[in-house]
């Protein structure tokens, strides 16, 4: 038996499915593929899979990962990739299968690419608003936690964010805390924009990569 890490992209129609739905879709793909995946032995027998870091509904993911155990040690990793791809819906595609080098707990930050636009105001105006917001002394937003809603300042997290405008939208690139301890959702910035300027910003967010504490890509 060996552990494998399945690397996949989540996009298109599958952008709109929740983490629980993703779990179900993956289990069915494994079942359909007939790959020798280890199943739980409990009351409700199913293939045992774990995701390194859940992705919010609506986000695209370019380097998502899922771990599972393969019963056949000799099975080639490429075969796993190909067989799974035959069984996945549009929008989920496996681009690599590796031996896991780190534990999911090693994940410390995630890199996001955000595209922002707004129907009511011009790109220039939105860009000016964003700059104003990022230059303010503090950016206070409501964050939902297990204990309820808390006001936090996200200024520090977005201080290194890079942003530029295109013809029709604004692109923000930012690395935010992610993983088992602290998580900062990039939509907090959108909430701050909406609240401060009374606008409705439409967003398209991609999680580009996840990193360990040293800033190296999670493997």
């Amino acid at each position, binding site marked *: 038996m060996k552990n494998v890490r399945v690397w996949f992209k989540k996009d298109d129609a599958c952008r*709109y499915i929740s983490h629980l*739905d993703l779990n179900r*879709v993956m289990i069915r793909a494994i*079942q359909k593929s007939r790959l020798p995946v280890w199943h739980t032995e409990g009351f409700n027998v199913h293939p045992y899979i774990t995701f390194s870091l859940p992705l919010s*509904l*609506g986000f695209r993911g370019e380097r998502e990962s899922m771990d599972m155990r393969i019963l056949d040690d000799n099975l080639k990793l490429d075969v796993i990739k190909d067989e799974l791809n035959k069984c996945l*819906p549009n929008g989920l595609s496996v681009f690599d299968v590796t031996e896991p080098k780190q534990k999911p707990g090693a994940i410390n930050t995630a890199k996001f690419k955000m595209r922002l636009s707004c129907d009511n105001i011009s790109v220039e105006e939105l860009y000016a608003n964003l700059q104003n917001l990022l230059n303010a002394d503090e950016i206070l937003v409501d964050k939902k936690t297990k204990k309820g809603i808390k006001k936090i300042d996200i200024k520090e997290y977005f201080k290194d964010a890079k942003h530029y405008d295109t013809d029709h939208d604004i692109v923000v690139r930012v690395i935010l805390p992610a993983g088992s301890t602290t998580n900062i959702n990039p939509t907090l910035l959108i909430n701050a924009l909406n609240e401060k300027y009374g606008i409705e910003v*439409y967003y398209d967010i991609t999680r580009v990569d996840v990193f360990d504490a040293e800033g190296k890509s999670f493997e």
Partner: protein
Amino acid sequence: MIKSKLEKILLKVQKPGKYVGGELNAVIKNKDEVDVRFAFCFPDTYEIGMSHLGMKILYSLFNSKPYIWCERVFAPWIDMEEQMIKNDIPLYALESMDPVSEFDFIGFTLQYELSYTNVLNMLKLSNIPLKSSDRKELTNIVVAGGPCACNPEPIAEFVDIFFIGDGEEVDLEVIELFRECKKQGKTKDEFLYLASQIKGVYVPALYSVEYNEDGTIKAFTPKRDGVPEKIEKRVMMDMDNSYYPQNFVVPNVEIVHDRAVEEIFRGCIRGCRFCQAGFLYRPVREKSVDCINEQCHTLCRNTGYDEISLSSLSSSDYTQIVPLLEKLTEWSVDENVSLSLPSLRVDGFSDDILSKIKSVRKSGLTFAPEAGTQRLRDVINKNVREDELLDTCLVAFDGGYTTVKLYFMIGLPTETMDDVKGIAELGQKVVNTFYKSENRPKGKGVKVTLSSSSFVPKPFTPFQWEPQDSIETIHSKQAHIRENLTTKKISYNYHDADTSFLEAVFARGDRKLNAVLLKACEKGMRFDGWSDCFSFEKWMEVFDECGIDPHFYANRHRSFDEILPWDHIDYSVTKEFLISECKKAYENQTTPHCREKCSNCGAMKHKGGVCFEKCKSMV
């Protein structure tokens, strides 16, 4: 176009995955390479519609023809509907994302009377004229089938063509005819007339209705020569060779019945007198064990589902049930696939079956005795005895089950308060049985749930002439059950009487109700099957404004010689048979099921199925 508009609203609605398509096994074709585009509309949410077997069969069947592209459309939930209207997005099909108004056919499956407003609302969201007479061109042909098509009259003015009976053949014949008519440049009227010549096709525009002064029907007549007076249903007699999908569209988001489904037979031998399906789908036609086994295996392999449901109206009546379960478990256990058997009868529940179903997973048990006393069960011809039910419960408790759900109907013909009390008493007897079980799970209590719905008299049943109990009477009967419960081990819940009333109105309605539905649609009513949306007051307002008395349809006793709104539709079961069954009900007399003795209902004319099982075994 629609796609880019959608991206902006999808994150504002719940479960956006329902509105984007892209599922495994969804069929994508090139629209320029097909002759006919068919929008298969399910007039309810994605979660309900995607669970529906009929849609899966027809979707795959249509798409198996290279010249047809069939796509799926569901009713958007109210949050999505609001966003679509606000952003000027018309109703679209999930495969191509093209507006429904671009389709040749717009097909609805009618599963439930309270979805009629959704049919209209979906046409409205598609910007298609609601009335058949306002759609003049040979495009956007609105067709409908399914059990509620047995009385098409309440929605006859909105639908161009109804399919009566099994759809596998007749639907394709009509689509093929359309393709020809389009090629030849025929008009919609010409097409409709030609369609009416096909067996199983009902074109309401070709008939006129006259009424008596009391509101009942005086005459129902074809408007043109050559239009059939009676529309006979279509039946697939050879189930093994009937089309069955090898593939289901596998949803990415969770739906109500998220599993593979295999139809093991069509029809029901029992003839419970309240049950419309039991009469509409006669005669019983079984698939062979080998056919079912192969179809199940293929489906599981192609979808990745790890659960398969063996579907029918009464699964334990399948003649080869134990050999079938044995055959299925030969591979299902190894492949981690579990089997479920819905619609089990209490008398068909054996140790043998039990052990096969629970070999992988165990869930609660559900039975439907339907009535609380033997007398009333005889009236409705539900030939289940109390000792059988309790024996079955004992088997189940011995086998480790601790929860039992019992379904009943209240408001059945001849019902007395003693019959109603009998429901509570039966619940108590099941609780007592648990404590009689020697092998019952130790340290666990028993949970019995009694659930009651209100009886809705339906066309093509022996009770089609019966009045429905008034809402007040239903309420007092519900209270009577509650008062007679003495233990917390029994919980009681009931189906809302208001919605059953509306169901009864539309189930046996006539063409005058089209105006009511139109008005309801204008007022923005839809999703009446959902308590979130249903408003009894609003409906009463609509009836009032249209000058229609709903009680005329729901609570009136009809005489046997009255012309009923659905009398021109022929489901093979004769009116004489239904009348004799109705009379027997009032004499507390039961009728044996089809395998015990033929009661000459009329279905034998199809020359197959259960009617000829004995002949086959004699050869």
